[in-house]
């Protein structure tokens, strides 16, 4: 476990361009709903002396007046744009993971980083999208079923006169749901790694295999993920501490500093996620060693087929 975590972090650290590319892509997507917001807010807040209070702190009164100025549609449009972009981000995750795993798997290849990333992203895109959809459906069904079970099982406790019981029950239910959701998300990660390694075509089989992999090594797979999630939590707490305890962004320097801190946090998040994928990949390869390091083969047409040598298929079947 420790070796995998170490390897994952090392992999992420060895690929700063990968981290930066992912940060830039998702940052670019985020700009789609951010730029209209800037136009709207700058148009309303910019000329208003009342808006000066925003520089000292978040002013609820100004926010409510802003909504009242432009109507709720302004917020509705921004929320709509944010949701559309979030959907694009979800779809593009299939491409991103193809790229990440391809870059990891093709270290030492002379091809450029960008070539390898886009090659992997393109090659696995549809398969990873199918995997993500399968995982999403499984996750929804499983968490729904577990939630229903928990609701039924804890109904007598909910009316308990011991008030903290209700909160603790809520936290416990949430933790169980989180653990179940994590199971399906970890299975998705390991299924992707398997597909990347074996170039599988059956995504149902791959996802089932991912689930099996996680269930057979529950402690290790969760044990690898938890430190990364913990580091994310620390990052979030540090940011909140910065936001709440530093002087408000009253001048351009402070605003620029806030922006830089925010971007450092986002880059940190991406780094940790890439590191987790690296750690999971290391663990998967260690647990299921394979004789051949598989990366996507480029199809090279032979100059003249040798009758006595079979033409290699594009897909190489590797036993697991």
């Amino acid at each position, binding site marked *: 476990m420790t070796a995998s975590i170490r390897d994952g972090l090392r992999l992420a650290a060895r690929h700063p361009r990968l981290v930066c590319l992912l940060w830039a892509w998702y940052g670019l*997507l985020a700009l789609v709903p951010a730029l209209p917001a800037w136009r709207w807010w700058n148009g309303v807040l910019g000329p208003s002396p009342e808006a000066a209070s925003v520089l000292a*702190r978040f002013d609820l009164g100004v926010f409510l007046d802003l909504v009242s100025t432009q109507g709720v549609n302004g917020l509705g449009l921004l929320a709509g744009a944010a949701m559309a972009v979030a959907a694009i981000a979800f779809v593009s995750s299939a491409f991103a993971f193809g790229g990440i795993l391809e870059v990891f798997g093709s270290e030492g290849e002379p091809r450029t980083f960008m070539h390898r990333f886009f090659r992997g992203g393109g090659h696995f895109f549809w398969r990873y999208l199918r995997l993500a959809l399968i995982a999403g459906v499984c996750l929804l069904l499983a968490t729904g079923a577990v939630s229903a079970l928990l609701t039924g099982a804890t109904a007598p406790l909910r009316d308990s006169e011991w008030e903290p019981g209700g909160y603790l029950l809520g936290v416990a239910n949430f933790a169980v749901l989180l653990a179940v959701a994590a199971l399906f998300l970890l299975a998705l990660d390991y299924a992707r790694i398997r597909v990347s390694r074996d170039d599988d075509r059956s995504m149902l089989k791959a996802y089932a295999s991912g689930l099996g992999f996680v269930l057979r090594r529950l402690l290790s797979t969760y044990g690898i993920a938890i430190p990364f999630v913990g580091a994310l939590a620390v990052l979030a707490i540090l940011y909140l501490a910065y936001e709440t305890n530093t002087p408000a*962004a009253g001048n351009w320097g402070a605003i620029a500093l806030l922006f830089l801190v925010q971007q450092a*946090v986002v880059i940190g998040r991406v780094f940790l*996620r890439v590191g987790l994928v690296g750690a999971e990949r290391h663990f998967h390869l260690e647990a299921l060693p394979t004789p051949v390091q598989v990366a996507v083969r480029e199809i090279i047409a032979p100059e003249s087929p040798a009758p006595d040598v079979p033409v290699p298929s594009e897909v190489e079947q590797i036993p697991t």
Partner: protein
Amino acid sequence: MRRVLSISLLAFLAAAATAAQSLPERSDRVVDYRISVALDPVKHVLTGRQTLTWRNPSTTDAVSELQFHLYLNAFKNTKSTFVQESGGQLRGAEMATDGWGWIDITSIATSAGADLTPTLAFIQPDDGNKDDQTVARVTLPEPVPPGGSVTLEMAFTSKLPQVFARTGYKDDFHLAGQWFPKLGVYEPAGMRGRETGGWNCHQFHANSEFYADFGTYAVDITVPSDYIVGATGERKRERANGNGTTTYTFEQADVHDFAWTADPDYVVVKATFSATQDVSPAEYERTAKLLGRTLDEVQLSDVDITVLLQPDHRPQAQRHIDAAKAGLKYYGLRYGRYPYKTLTVVDPAPGAGGAGGMEYPTFITAGSAWLFNFWPFDRIRLVEEVTVHEFGHQFWYGMVASNEFEEAWLDEGFNTWSTSKAMVEAYGADATIMEFLGFRMSDRDMSRASNDRAGRYNRILAKSWEYTPPGAYGFYSYYKPALALATLEGYLGEQTMARLMRTYHERWRFKHPRSEDFFALVNEVTGQDWSWYFDQVIRGTDIVDYDIGSASTRAVRTSQGVFDAAAGRRTVSSSDADEKDLEIERAKKQIFESVVVVRRSGGVKLPVEVAFKFEGRPVERQTWDGRDTTRRFRFERPEKLEWVDVDPDRTIALDVNWLNNGRRLTPDSRPAASWTARWLFMLQNVITTLGLL
């Protein structure tokens, strides 16, 4: 500015001239209740007997019938007016389908022994809903003459509902509100503008609280001995009955209702509000100066505070006590000494939130949660806000006692405004409600949050069940009146407003005033006719919104063309003018023409100040009466206009939008940049999470 100044000055002088009122020592004591009640904690049934004496307050009318509130019948079935109007839910709590409540008068007779039970009949004075049994009348064998009285012996059984709307039970927790047959108010001709005398006894509505007459109460409450009891008034006696029950006797005069609670789980926390230790000499002096009163007139008295707390909320005991003391101090200093010796604060049981946030005489319910024991949730000042607010009702609902059915704003609105001021005094201006992870929210934010352009379909002065939709009651009885009073204060100034409110409270303590009485007092105290304000804001439906139509500043160019002068006709060509302009610019002697168009986008016409800031000059203010829809201001100055702002002190709290009040001629992009950075960060986090799921 001149007009606003003159308003303030006149108001101040008139206020200073207003004779100091003295606080009435006692109410008219129209009713006297002697009640014995026993709680069956398993069936949640109260069995009671009451001896009720009613004095006819009229000097002219003989009264031949009595009208009673039987408000627990609101929870009797789904056909009651209350359930029809509320849909079985109130303030987020839902009515349980198996927790019905009702009240039966099992017998009623005069002290002479005449049985009145057969004359008992339900009436529906508000909506004619024949299924509603929340008001009943009995016919007396002979009319009560003016100034005469009648005594009735009554027996009743009350089944408490499972609590969702102020009163009821949840497991062992019992909150008995509106639990006994309570007389309505007989209003003689002339009272509250009535032309003829008659009963004012409304049905129980979803959006309404109460109205009853002042009197004296002595109540024996019998409960299992392990139950802890709190109630209106002072506990006078406690008697163990030897059968596992104990009887507690509570008494209180000069109140118009009686509520009590019983729960074996309460943790009892006691404290004393000390008029000498909890209020400093400097605070007394400051208040006396502000109100123009002597130190004796603003002197408070000690009050015993009892907090009945849920065991899991023990760490919040001090917060409840501090909030109660903050209320006793602020309201007592500003409006007059709290005249009772006790205050009981009830923290309802978990799951009984519907009983929280309610006021009864000397007895209030707050509401909290276990989570508020801990950081950062302890920075949400719900306990403080609710405790101060419900305590504040003692001064409006409790002592001034307006008719909440017909003019809810005189209680809820006055109290929302007062709460806001008390909270600012105790906890600071920006974060009276919440200071949570850098997010702050004040009472003013809360009131302004609901004040938008949609708020133009009802008027403040309306019967509480007639607002459309019914949910509008909250805005028109709490928040808009609070904003209207804050705006009035903006015109009058803090001192005049403080004196006005003090005088209003003193003059009308224990007397059931109506809106007209308040309006008349404002005119009297200020020496001006404010009907233009109240007609628009309290009786009218429109909104207040001022904004800037346009603002520009540019250099005045040299005029071109043919000009007649004493020396003869002179022609200034375009190039001559340009040359002259260049010369002026080089000499830095330019004159700038600044033109601003201020608009009144709302229908309410209020005078406003407009502030103008020219480069390197102090802020200049002018006044606009706001009668037309626009006003154009034009200046020729050596300085450029930097910004213009309507109502720069934000005294018109009723304005639905303050963001459009001003205009900078050079926009400042920092506020938008600051928000956009945060919005972008939020988006990036969401998108990165989904994109790397």
